[in-house]
């Protein structure tokens, strides 16, 4: 069922001279979803987002929002708004003026402008900082202002290019829950670019994994994590092993591999690395066929019977947990 607010990419392509940054991708973002574009550096995430925003010309294909081809409209007339990686707050304007900028451009009168800006600052809990300059705000505060500024145009789609990467890890986690909450409240579509799979998992209703200018897999977060379709997705999402068995390639979550006594499992191997992760321990294992696997086991279980690098172990798993991979 398509709603009025669906955003559809139709054979969208971006070429920079010889390089093809985005290669005819096809995707439907349903209205009101929180979607994450996930992929390694240089895979074309930003290019895609910037084409949707209108900051990059479309080389081929179309972008359709609410039934209208917006590929050639100027950014402000698309019904999208963008939040930039470093927020791009105008350094010479106060917080309130930053937020009210688009109203000023539309020649909305001062009073109304002010009122609307304050309402949005309210939304992001920044009313107290209305008169400050961006340079006088912390990273998290800046981000909220950027959010308010993007939202004042009442966009149907908010586009976010790595909005959290400039924050320190602490703040990153706090801001991501705020983002998610806001999206729920507003009910509009968020398209969020990131290269952190944890971020994507935590935030997204739908994850779109890109690689090499194309979409590798798209679907609900849980589906993408639990049933990666390709080896790339399995590896990129992390927490997965790709095992080559005579029957084909399979993905299996690292925490679904059990480590047993040597020579008592489905595969034999020896430990090459141990990484303590707090609540769990990740063992890097080399199997007989020279495959590197990771097994994650709860720390209490590990420390109950510690294993040293070099020790031989057996590996076991529940066949149900294996997912066959394409290619």
């Amino acid at each position: 069922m398509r709603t009025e607010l669906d955003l559809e990419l139709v054979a969208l392509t971006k070429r920079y001279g010889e390089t093809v940054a985005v290669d005819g991708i096809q995707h439907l973002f349903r209205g009101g979803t929180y979607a994450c574009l996930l992929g390694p550096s240089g895979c074309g995430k930003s290019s895609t987002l910037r084409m949707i925003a209108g900051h990059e010309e479309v080389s081929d294909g179309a972008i359709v929002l609410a039934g209208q081809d917006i590929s050639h409209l100027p950014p402000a007339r698309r019904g999208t708004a963008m939040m930039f990686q470093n927020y791009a707050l105008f350094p010479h304007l106060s917080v309130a003026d930053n937020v009210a900028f688009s109203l000023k451009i539309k020649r909305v009168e001062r009073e109304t402008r002010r009122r609307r800006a304050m309402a949005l600052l309210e939304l992001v809990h920044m009313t107290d900082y209305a008169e400050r300059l961006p340079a006088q705000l912390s990273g998290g505060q800046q981000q909220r202002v950027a959010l308010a500024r993007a939202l004042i145009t009442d966009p149907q789609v908010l586009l976010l290019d790595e909005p959290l990467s400039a924050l320190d890890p602490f703040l990153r986690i706090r801001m991501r829950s705020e983002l998610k909450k806001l999206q729920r409240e507003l009910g509009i579509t968020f398209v969020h670019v990131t290269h952190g799979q944890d971020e994507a998992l935590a935030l997204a209703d739908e994850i779109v994994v890109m690689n090499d200018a194309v979409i590798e897999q798209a679907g609900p977060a849980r589906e993408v994590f639990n049933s990666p379709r390709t080896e790339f997705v399995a590896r990129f999402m992390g927490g997965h092993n790709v095992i080559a068995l005579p029957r084909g390639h399979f993905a299996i979550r690292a925490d679904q591999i059990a480590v047993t006594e040597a020579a008592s499992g489905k595969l034999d191997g020896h430990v090459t690395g141990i990484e303590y992760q707090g609540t769990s321990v990740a063992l890097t294992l080399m199997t007989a066929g020279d495959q590197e696997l990771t097994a994650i086991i709860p720390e209490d279980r590990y420390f109950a019977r510690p294993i040293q690098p070099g020790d031989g172990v057996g590996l076991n798993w529940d066949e149900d947990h294996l997912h066959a991979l394409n290619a």
Partner: protein
Amino acid sequence: MSAHPTTSPAAPGSLPGALLKNRHVSGWLLASPLGLVLAVFLLLPIAMIAIVSFWGATEFSIYPDFQWDNYAFLLSSPVTYKVFLNTFKYAVLTWIFTLGIGFTVAYFLAFHIRSLTWQIALFLLCTIPFWTSNIIRMISWIPFLGRNGIANSTLMSMGVIDAPLDWLLYSDFSVILAFVHLYTLFMVVPIFNSMMRIDRALIEAAYDAGATGFQTLTNVIIPLCKPGIMIGSIFVVTLVMGDFITVRFMSGSQSANVGRLISNDIALLQYPSAAATAVILLITVLMVIGILLRFVDIRKEL
């Protein structure tokens, strides 16, 4: 619902709009005032000089012609070569001194002054004399260096010398001194700029590797300052090669460089011969700059 609505009616697809979007067109529109000024006041004059260098002249006027006389006279006179040589001598000596002084000063400011405020303050202090008229700065050396000037009287009262040093003024020494005085700043600024962009961690890394201050200087700082040094050199060399007034004032008219040759000709209304000299000078300068530019991409270094 159609996934491909045809071009929306309001799309700014009108011809002027599309033209404005073309980066070549908008580029030229924006650059046109610049292009215009340079075309009228740079290219045209250069072309004019080139043309006039073939003209003839009487005592008081010039007339269109095509003759090689001006070049023939210029290139046949041994004095021309001497003067060009002299010009190069001034350029090279000034370059050496401004580079030495400029580099040291920039180095001190960039690496030994730790607070930004102080760096800016001291840097401004260096630039202030630059805001005074060059001619006044130049002639103010004369009471300082003269036979009875401050320098000589100080030295004599200190008993260092017992007769005034004549070579302080109206000599190559005073010419170079004035050049260095006028133009060192042009060396300090770009080198300082380069140095400020060197990551301090690189210095620490060198120090970590056991390098002494001097080894750090030669192995790390100087190679990384090359662009600044090149830009400063371009400034200094061109300014000195094109100068005509410093040499006149400070040598007491006793020495000549190409600029003076040209200005003398101009003063005597011998425009074609001035133009011929100018053409040769321009070619020389552009060649020198061309060589220097091979070592640095100015636009990237800003």
